[in-house]
């Protein structure tokens, strides 16, 4: 009898009907208390962070499905990792259906918040910041979902990442919406991912604003179907402070949008202003690689209905100044290396075509011309990304 009762109780506990809120306040033993709450939480529970600064000594992690971690606001509940001794990130999430909202992660030694294999994750009104401003010693990624399906990052702020502020890698079905990325090497980066929308973000004072990349030798390759729309991509001229060796270390300062080795990418209805190298770059992956399954070229990139401000006045690559001089002092607003296929630019903007014919060819062999396009090109609109209703509901 007792055993039956115990079993019944155990079953009930896994049901969200009995969901509870576990409140953790800042103060002594924050590390143990918060980590314990994150471990003992059950599906459906809310781990609520009090107001104040939580001083943490190690990385935190969450591995329970259907848990919400909620603070009192991105400027009120602050997880400070300035004294972190171990782990590769501030907070690591490895479970599904998790909602992170209304708190900040500051000064983590590695990445800010990483979620790996965490499907249907929502990041809402989160702040990840390296408070000393842009430095090579800052962690790599701010908000870092990887290897997952259904990702929503909204109304969040990321500052100071030495790689990408918001980085989505090797994932599917992604919305990055209405965030602010400031003073990172890359503001927002979508890498080796399928079906993504990057919309209505403010991306400013980064080295590069929005990057859509694909890299070789990874479990998921062949990035495609990415919409970059209705973003303000302004004044991304911060000197590149990424540690050498990382792919973003090769991104020129003054890059607005950069599409590299991807297929079916649409850059539409953005305001791209004052990016010193180029407002939009469409290029191949130029480094050597050994991977027969990897296509390094850009294919079917569609650029239309954008608003263009000044660009190309300070090209940050070798020979850039001479090239700019040849075009009357500034490079055209769109920069294309000439590789791949299917570039369409329907905007009233000049397009520089380097005229490269081979991937990895030296820029010294470039035959730069203005890209000619007869009339308007046509494309098929990308299907809108639809996320499970539970995810959109979590924003309320």
């Amino acid at each position: 009898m007792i055993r039956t009762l115990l079993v019944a109780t155990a079953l009930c506990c896994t049901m969200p009907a009995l969901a509870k809120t576990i409140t953790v306040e800042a103060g002594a033993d924050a590390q143990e208390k918060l980590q314990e709450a994150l471990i003992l939480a059950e599906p459906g529970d809310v781990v609520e962070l009090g107001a104040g600064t939580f001083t943490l000594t190690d990385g935190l992690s969450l591995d329970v499905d259907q848990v919400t971690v909620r603070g009192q606001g991105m400027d009120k509940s602050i997880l400070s990792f300035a004294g972190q001794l171990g782990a590769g990130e501030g907070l690591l999430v490895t479970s599904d259906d998790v909602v992170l909202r209304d708190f900040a992660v500051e000064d983590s030694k590695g990445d800010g918040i990483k979620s790996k294999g965490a499907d249907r994750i929502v990041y809402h009104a989160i702040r990840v910041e390296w408070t000393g401003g842009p430095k090579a010693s800052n962690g790599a990624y701010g908000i870092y979902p990887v290897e997952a399906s259904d990702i929503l990052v909204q109304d969040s702020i990321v500052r100071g990442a030495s790689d990408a502020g918001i980085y989505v890698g090797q994932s599917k079905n992604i919305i990055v919406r209405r965030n602010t990325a400031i003073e990172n090497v890359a503001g927002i980066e979508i890498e080796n991912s399928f079906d993504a929308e990057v919309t209505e973000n403010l991306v400013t004072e980064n080295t590069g604003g929005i990057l859509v990349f694909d890299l070789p030798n990874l479990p998921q390759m062949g990035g495609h179907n990415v919409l970059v729309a209705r973003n303000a991509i302004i004044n991304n001229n911060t000197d590149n402070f990424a540690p050498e060796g990382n792919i973003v270390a090769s991104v020129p300062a003054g890059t607005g949008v950069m599409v590299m080795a991807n297929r079916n990418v649409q850059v539409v209805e953005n305001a791209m202003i004052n990016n010193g190298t180029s407002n939009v770059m469409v290029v191949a992956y130029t480094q050597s690689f050994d991977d027969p399954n990897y296509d390094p070229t850009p294919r079917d990139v569609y650029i239309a209905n954008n608003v263009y401000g000044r660009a190309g006045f300070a090209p940050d690559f070798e020979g850039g100044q001479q090239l700019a001089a040849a075009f009357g002092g500034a490079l055209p607003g769109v920069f294309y290396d000439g590789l791949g296929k299917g570039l369409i630019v329907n905007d009233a903007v000049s397009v520089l075509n380097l005229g490269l014919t081979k991937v990895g060819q030296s820029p010294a062999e470039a035959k730069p011309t203005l890209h000619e396009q007869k009339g308007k090109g046509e494309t098929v609109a990308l299907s809108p990304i639809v996320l499970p209703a539970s995810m959109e509901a979590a924003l309320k």
Partner: protein
Amino acid sequence: MRTLIAAIAICVAGFAVSAAPTAPVVDAVITAKGMPKKLSDFGFFTDAAGWKPNKGVELYQLNSALFTDYAEKYRYIYVPAGQRAVADGDGLLQFPVGSALIKSFGYEIDGKDRLLETRVLLHRADGWIALPYVWNAEQTEATLKVAGKRIPVRFTDPSGESRDISYAVPNKNQCKECHSLSGEVMPIGPKSRNLSHDTLDMLLSNAMLEQKSGSHPPVADYDDAAMPLESRARAYLDINCAHCHNRQGSASNSGLFLTYEEESPVHLGVGKRPVAAGRGSGGFEFAIAPGNPDESIMMHRLKSLESGVAMPEVGRSLVHAEGAALLSKWIAEMEKE
């Protein structure tokens, strides 16, 4: 009631010394849901200090072991009476439900062996669960610490140098970060190829193991200088790195795969550029630059103590000088491209 139980426990421990029958391992505690508060709840040891394994709990040895700040490790295997583990075609051991792997960590401190923590991996009907238990100062009980703990330790390392470290007992999630295969908790060490010859003999003769098919060439002991350099280096990577750096592991997204079976040079790191290394790259281009260990990201991260750079990410606050020297030599002897 509690007093009575405690009294019984003391009696049991007392009898153990006089070789009287002791209470067996409590199978129900291994398999039941929940997280037992005390290590003694399992009955893995007959003494309060956790040195004397109970009947059916067998000490075992690996060929190559994970480096954990020079801690001494004591590994035990428990398989429920009448059952046995099966070594499958790949040499992985399939344990029956109710099995447990127990690992105590300690140092010789002031001339005495002291335990800091004991980690248990329990095989339950719904999979494995990993739990960390921390020993008290009196060495009379280890208590569950799901959130982990940092313990200041002073000890003398193999080279004779005195070390002061902040020893990190992993939290329950960190246990899983390393023991994760496709998101499920799995044992790491006990593969046929990595069990010592004596351990395999012991398990077979105790009828705790059944070997299904062919033999698996043993992994080299990376400390054994008589073994080929390549075998030693690959053994080191396999046991120290590959629990995360494999296609189903926590570092699957890195594309750096360091298992013993990996055949692709680029996935092993040769000429492989970093993906998400950040400042972990140290400004270098490749995980392994053949012939050039000093410009290999792998060496940079192995030799670093800085959080966010150091690899492995957990379980190490010291550089494993001997391991770093081994891998450095391995990379130095690779042909430059």
